[in-house]
């Protein structure tokens, strides 16, 4: 009995150690930093281009919120998110999530990880938490860089919401953070899909490409009006509904719907990944 609980304790401790090392390896990796830099470049490019152009954008042209930037720099972050959500964010998430298991396998380090007494299920959980942590950081990088660059290059003032109401800067920050949370949650389903693809192969590029392709294909399906019945089931369905947090009063409904949908995807693809990973022969 006591030896059994000792083993469980050792596994748990080993799981925590694994998580700490996973996170430090992930965020020290040059590729991760390059991805985050690329994401930070989006708001910087938008802000600098707008600052340099003599004529401001006309209302209703270009990405949403773009015309607001010249009057209020705080909108740079939101505009950058709108631009990054369809492709750039899924791209970076696909790279990180697709690499989780397949990357270790291709380096030949997977079996050493499994030698640690954490167990395969814990290793998978640790890998997923690592990918989720990247989602948090990636979205924050876009929003925070955007806000800082916008504040540096443009005037900052009370923020006009979609409903036409105006809120003070402090409340606006809180709402932007809520939006960052919303977009992070939106990406968790895709991370689980990437994790599953990563357990299928020893070639990380294959898993990354599959994840990104899946994301693009899903968004194409979401754009076809003929498939309307399918749309609420697509993980990208609520991606742009983060704008509900910019209405007055705030509508939390899409936040809840989105979270529920993503939990469904995490459960489904997490289970598939677990089923695959527990029974897989690890040879490398």
């Amino acid at each position, binding site marked *: 009995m006591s030896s059994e609980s000792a083993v469980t304790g050792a596994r748990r401790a080993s799981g925590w150690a694994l998580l700490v090392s996973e996170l430090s390896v992930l965020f020290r990796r040059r590729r991760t930093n390059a991805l985050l830099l690329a994401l930070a470049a989006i708001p910087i490019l938008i802000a600098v281009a707008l600052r340099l152009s003599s004529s401001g954008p006309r*209302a*209703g042209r270009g990405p*949403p*919120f773009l*015309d*607001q930037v010249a*009057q209020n720099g705080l909108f740079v972050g939101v505009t950058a998110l*709108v631009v990054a959500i369809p492709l750039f964010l899924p791209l970076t998430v696909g790279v990180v999530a697709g690499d989780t298991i397949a990357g270790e396998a291709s380096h030949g380090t997977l079996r050493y990880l499994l030698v640690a007494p954490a167990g395969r299920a814990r290793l998978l959980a640790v890998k997923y938490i690592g990918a989720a942590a990247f989602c948090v950081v990636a979205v924050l990088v876009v929003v925070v860089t955007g806000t800082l660059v916008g504040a540096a290059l443009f005037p900052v*003032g009370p923020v*006009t919401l*979609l*409903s*036409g*109401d*105006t809120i003070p800067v402090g409340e606006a920050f809180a709402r932007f953070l809520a939006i960052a949370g919303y977009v992070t949650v939106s990406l968790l389903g895709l991370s689980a899909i990437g994790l599953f693809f990563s357990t299928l192969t020893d070639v990380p590029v294959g898993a990354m490409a599959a994840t990104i392709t899946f994301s693009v294909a899903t968004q194409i399906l979401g754009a076809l*009006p003929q498939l309307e019945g399918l749309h609420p089931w697509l993980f990208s369905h609520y991606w*742009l*509904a983060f*704008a*509900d947090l910019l*209405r*007055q*009063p705030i*509508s939390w*409904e899409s936040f809840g719907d989105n979270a529920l949908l993503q939990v*469904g995807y995490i*459960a*489904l693809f*997490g*289970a*598939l990944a*677990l*089923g*695959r990973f527990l029974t897989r022969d690890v040879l490398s």
Partner: protein
Amino acid sequence: MPAVVVPAVIVVGAVIAPLQASAVIVLPEKTPEELLEFASSSEVRALSGTIEQNSRLGLPDLSGVTGSPGGSEGADIASTLELVTGSHTARVYLNGPTNARIQVLDQLAERNIVRSGGDVWFYDSEDRTASHATLPAGAEAPRVQTPERLADRFLASIDQTTEVTVGTNAQVAGRPAYQLVLTPLDDDTLVASVTIAIDSETGLAVGVEILASGGTAPAFALAFTELSLATPDAGLFAFTPPPGTTVTELTEAETREEPTDRPGKSSHSVSGEGWSSILEIPASEVPSEFAASPLLASASQEVSGGRLLSTALVNVLVTDDGRLLLGSVTADRLQDAAAGL
């Protein structure tokens, strides 16, 4: 194991959850007469809620036409049509007869109508324009379709050609509701039935569904998905245009609604009765931008005697001599009426 069990659980959950929502709802029984009386005695003055509109009128997709550079008049017609035909979600806040706010929730954008006393503001977040109008005292609020207003129109038009029955009870916006079914006894109309959901507590009409003949899913549905009868925050009705907005002041003439669908005015004539009545507008009164709009050309088809715009619920015929005939009847009936038969 988990690879099989979890997907199975999710699928079962996704299938069963909607089934449970449609469980039988028991309410004290009412006859159609009692229900009509109950609906007309409704005294809801303040509410906030979310309305969803779905229409499957069988019109060709208009989104491509909406963006075409056809001048502002064409765009106006297109955006009106888009509001009627598309699927939309709107939030509605009402407090008394003179305070109202309607927010049409678009993706990454919003259209607002705010009325506070005699002041009416329209605000569009997409092009960031606001317009302001001052209503003369006692004027009607801007026409915004809520389930209640639409239901009132149907209830007001009940006559001997309509059979009124009570349908199975339903759950609308999480509240038990009676359903009143109006069935036209007229074979010529395109409307198979109109179902009006009436809140069991207050008598407020909370949903309207129109079924077209030959259809199984409603061709048009307008219903609350969320409803609270608490008085909304007064701040919602106070609107100041945000800085950087182009503000247009509307004159009184522009504020007044054109009664296009109300017969009896000017030289519009109505033939037929009840559900299958046909409205005829003489060529001189058909707005020229409508007849010439590329929208009409792309959405309608050539028939003998003119161009026919056909939807599941309404047929519109523009004759070769420029008259416009409109009715919830079959195309043949319209053509007969155009020919004076």
